[in-house]
C-alpha cells in the first residue's frame, strides 16, 4: 500500500452544536507509533471514534489506508484494530470464545487457530479458557489487545491503553506495542495522558487542545527540543494553557 496510513484534512465534529474537534489536519506514515496527547475532553477519543468509523465526522475528511472513513466503512474496518479505553467483552464467554467471535466477524479463516496463535504471541495462553467476567483490569487489557490484533490489521488504534494498569502492566503493554510495530509492521495510533509512555514508545507525537491540533513532530525532534521529561511536561502544560 502506498501513501500515509492515516490522513486527516480539516476534520471537525460537533456534539449537540458544540464543536469538539476543529479543523484538524494530520498525516501519519506507515509504521509510525503516533502518540496523541491532550487533556480530558480535548477531542482525542472523538478523533479515534471517527477514524474507527464509530461516528461520522461533521466536517472535513479522514482516510485510513487511503479509504474514507465516512463512505468506505467496510474497507476501513477490514484493516484496523481498536482497543477502547475501557475494555469490556462478553463476560459469560471465555477469552477464546470472545476472540473467536471477533476474529470470525473480521473474516479470519481458521479463527480458533489464529486466536491460539495471538494468545501465544501475547504470552497469555493461560487465559484462553477462562471466562472474561473473572478477569482483572490487566488481564482484560491483554485480551483486549488480542481482539484488536487477532485479524492482523495494518493500523491499530489504542484509546488510553494504560488507564487502570499497574506499573508492570504498563511495562508489558509498552513492550507489546513495540513488538507489534516491529514484528507485524503495524502503524499504531495511541491516545494517552502518559508523557512517559509517549517518550518511550512513540516515534511521532501530536498535542490536541480544545479540539485543535497545536503540535505535531517526530519524537526525535521533540526530544531535541525538550531534552528531559520534566521539560516536556512543562511545555505540554504551557501549550494547554493550564496553570503549571
Amino acid at each position: 500500500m502506498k501513501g500515509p496510513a492515516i490522513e486527516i484534512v480539516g476534520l471537525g465534529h460537533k456534539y449537540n452544536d458544540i464543536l469538539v474537534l476543529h479543523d484538524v489536519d494530520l498525516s501519519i506514515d506507515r509504521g509510525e507509533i503516533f502518540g496523541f496527547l491532550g487533556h480530558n475532553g480535548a477531542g482525542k477519543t472523538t478523533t479515534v471514534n471517527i477514524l474507527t468509523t464509530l461516528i461520522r465526522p461533521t466536517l472535513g475528511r479522514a482516510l485510513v489506508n487511503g479509504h474514507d472513513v465516512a463512505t468506505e466503512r467496510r474497507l476501513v474496518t477490514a484493516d484496523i484494530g481498536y482497543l477502547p479505553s475501557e475494555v469490556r467483552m462478553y463476560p459469560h464467554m471465555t477469552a477464546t470464545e470472545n476472540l473467536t467471535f471477533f476474529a470470525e466477524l473480521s473474516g479470519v479463516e481458521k479463527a480458533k487457530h489464529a486466536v491460539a496463535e495471538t494468545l501465544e504471541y501475547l504470552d497469555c495462553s493461560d487465559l484462553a479458557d477462562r471466562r472474561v467476567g473473572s478477569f482483572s483490569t490487566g488481564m482484560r487489557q491483554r485480551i483486549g489487545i488480542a481482539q484488536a490484533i487477532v485479524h492482523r490489521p495494518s493500523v491499530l488504534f489504542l484509546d488510553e491503553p494504560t488507564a487502570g494498569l499497574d506499573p508492570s502492566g504498563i511495562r508489558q503493554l509498552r513492550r507489546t506495542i513495540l513488538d507489534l510495530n516491529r514484528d507485524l509492521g503495524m502503524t499504531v495510533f495511541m491516545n494517552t495522558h502518559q508523557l512517559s509512555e509517549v517518550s518511550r514508545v512513540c516515534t511521532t507525537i501530536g498535542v490536541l487542545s480544545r479540539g485543535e491540533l497545536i503540535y505535531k513532530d517526530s519524537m526525535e525532534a521533540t526530544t531535541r527540543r525538550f531534552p528531559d521529561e520534566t521539560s516536556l511536561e512543562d511545555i505540554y502544560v504551557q501549550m494547554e494553557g493550564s496553570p503549571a
Partner: protein
Amino acid sequence: MASDRRHRVLTIARHEYRAAARSRILVVLLAILVIATAGSVIVAAAEYASRLADYQAYHAAAVAGGVTQIAPSPLAPLSLLRGAFEYIEIIGAVIAITLGYLTVSRERVNRTLPLLMSRPVTSGELAAGSLLGAVGVIVTLVVATMAVAVLSVGLVGHDWINVGQAGKLMLAFGVAVVYMATFYCLGAFTTASTKVATNGLMVALGIWLFVVLVLPQIGDTLDADNQIPGGLFAALGLGHDGEVQILTHFTAYETVRTSIEAASFAKHFERFAFAMTDVKERFRSLSLPDLFFQVRASIVWILIYATALPIALNHSFRNQPSIPQGET
C-alpha cells in the same frame, strides 16, 4: 462478498444463540412455559383418556351387537394442545420480548457495541444475525414445548396423533415460531429505540399487555355468543349458519368488535393455531386448503406483522449510536 455477508450473519446468529442459552432468566422462563404446557396438556389428556375409553367401550359394544353404522369418534386429540398454544400466546410472547430486550441491552451493558461496529459488520447484518439467532432459540423452545405436549397426549391420553395431524401441528407450531419471532423484533426494536434499555422493555411489555390480553378480552366480552356459559347460540339451538344469519342484523356492532380483535396479532395467531388443532369443532372436518381459506384474514395479518416488525428492527439498529452519546 455475499458469502462474507452470510458468514458474518451466521457468526452473529451463533453468538446470539449461545448468549441466550446461557441467560438464566430465559432458562427460567422456558421452564415455566414447558411446565405450564405439560400441566395443561396432562390434565386435559387425563380427561380425554377416560372419554376415549368410553367411546372404545361403546364401539366394542356396537360391533358385538352387529351394528354396522357406528358413529365416528367425536374426540380430537390435537384439541388437547389448546393450552400449549394459549401459553405460547401469552408466556411465549413475554419470552420473545425478553430475548429481544437482552439482545440490545447485552451490548449496552457490556459496552461491546463499539468493538462490534469497529469490525466490517453493518447494522443490517447485526439485525439479521440477531434475529436469526433468536429464531434458533425460539425453534428450540417451540420444539421442546411441542415434544412435551405430544408426548403428554400419547402417554396420558392414550391416543397418538397420526401423520396428517402431525402435519397440521407442524404448521401451527411453525406459525408459533413466526409469532414469537415477531415479538422478539418488538422487544429489540423498542429497546434499541430508547436511551434507557429498561424503558424499551416496559414499552414492549405495555404493547404485549394490550395486544395479547386487553384487545382479545374486549373482543371476547363483546361477543354475543359469550354472553351466557356454553354459548348463546348453542343455548338457542342454532348452529354456525344460524349464528351468522342473526349477526347480519348487527353488522355495525360486529364490525367494531371484529376490528378490535383484528388489531390483535395474538388473536390472529390463536385463530390459526386453533383452526389447525381442531379446537373449533366446525373446522374439524375441513381439508387443509379449506382451513387456510377460513383463516385467510389471520394469515394475511400475521404476514403483515411478521414483515413490519423485522423492518422496524433493522431501522432501529441502523439508528442506534455505536458509542454512548456524549462521550468525547
